[in-house]
């Protein structure tokens, strides 16, 4: 439903993008009927802008103030903390933990100890569980963790 009248109202309200604005301006310039309709709507818009507001009784403010005097004085919520501070603290801990983990893994000897199993496996474990495989596993965990963190933060932003 996008009648010419709606387009004209959108034009008057300034809700049109550049191309639609240009299109409606052309219609107004070329079509006398559209131009007349536009002028009528402009007058109507002016009249709507001039509508009066009603006045409550003289004692309105006093009545409100008498009512609020009985209520406890409002105070700013104590939980009102700048979110940037929370994110900064959170970020600091995440970075610290990651740095610590990186340090530990960098200095740790991730080579698998020699197994002395009597069970005869059909495959060689040492061949598969290498330090590279463990690094890859940890890297995948990190990526998954970051994806979850990203989703969590996006949800939080969307909820605002």
């Amino acid at each position, binding site marked *: *439903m996008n009648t010419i*009248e*709606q387009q004209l*109202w959108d034009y008057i309200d300034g*809700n049109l993008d550049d191309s639609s604005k240009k299109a409606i301006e052309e219609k107004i310039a070329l079509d006398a009927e559209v131009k007349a309709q536009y002028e*009528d709507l402009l*007058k*109507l818009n*002016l*009249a*709507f*802008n*001039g*509508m*009066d*507001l*009603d*006045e*409550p*009784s003289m004692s*309105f*403010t006093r*009545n*409100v*103030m008498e*009512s*609020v*005097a009985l*209520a406890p*004085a*409002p*105070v*700013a*919520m104590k939980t009102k903390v700048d979110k940037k501070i929370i994110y900064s603290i959170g970020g600091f801990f995440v970075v610290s933990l990651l740095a610590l983990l990186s340090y530990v893994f960098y200095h740790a000897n991730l080579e698998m100890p020699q197994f002395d199993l009597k069970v005869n496996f059909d495959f060689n474990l040492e061949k598969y569980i290498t330090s590279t495989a463990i690094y890859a596993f940890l890297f995948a965990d990190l990526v998954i963790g970051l994806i979850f963190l990203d989703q969590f933060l996006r949800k939080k932003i969307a909820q605002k």
Partner: protein
Amino acid sequence: MEQKLTDLELIQKVLNGETDQYALLVKRHQRFVFTLALRFSKNREDAEEIAQDCFVKAYKALGAFKQTAKFSTWLYTITYTTAMTFLRKNRLDTTSIHDESTILQLENQTSSFNANGYERQDSHAFLNIAITQLSPDDAAIITLFYKGEQSLEEIGEALHMEPNTIKVKLHRARQRLKEKLQYLLKDEVKELL
């Protein structure tokens, strides 16, 4: 000359213990809140009660007001919910614009104006009569848009609707208001506006 304090500055003063400053906020917004309440209740006494209740609620919740939005938008949201609760509780007659009695009422008003020779009454008076004949939602949207200095998004927030819904409703409300004015003023509408 003392500089006029903004809404947020006044709120801060109230939260800091200067509760009498709330009277300035009330005075600043009472006409609009009252008008909005009147759009829903269609009755001055009820509108006054709704508006008063709304300011008391706003005062009590002032500490929870997120100062990232406009105070007026927040206040109009409270007005809307208070008015809705009031209407539900009191089951007030929110006359539809398609209602036969509305048309009858309009007819009487028109004839009384003509009978008294007020053919060139102030256009504002006619407009206000036409607005009272709209449905509460239409009247509230028109009032919020033209007198509340609210964007479509802010009106949506106040009335718990999507901005696009508000846009469509605003179009329809203006159309209906135009029809009401045309009905009320017959051929004089263009002349008067």
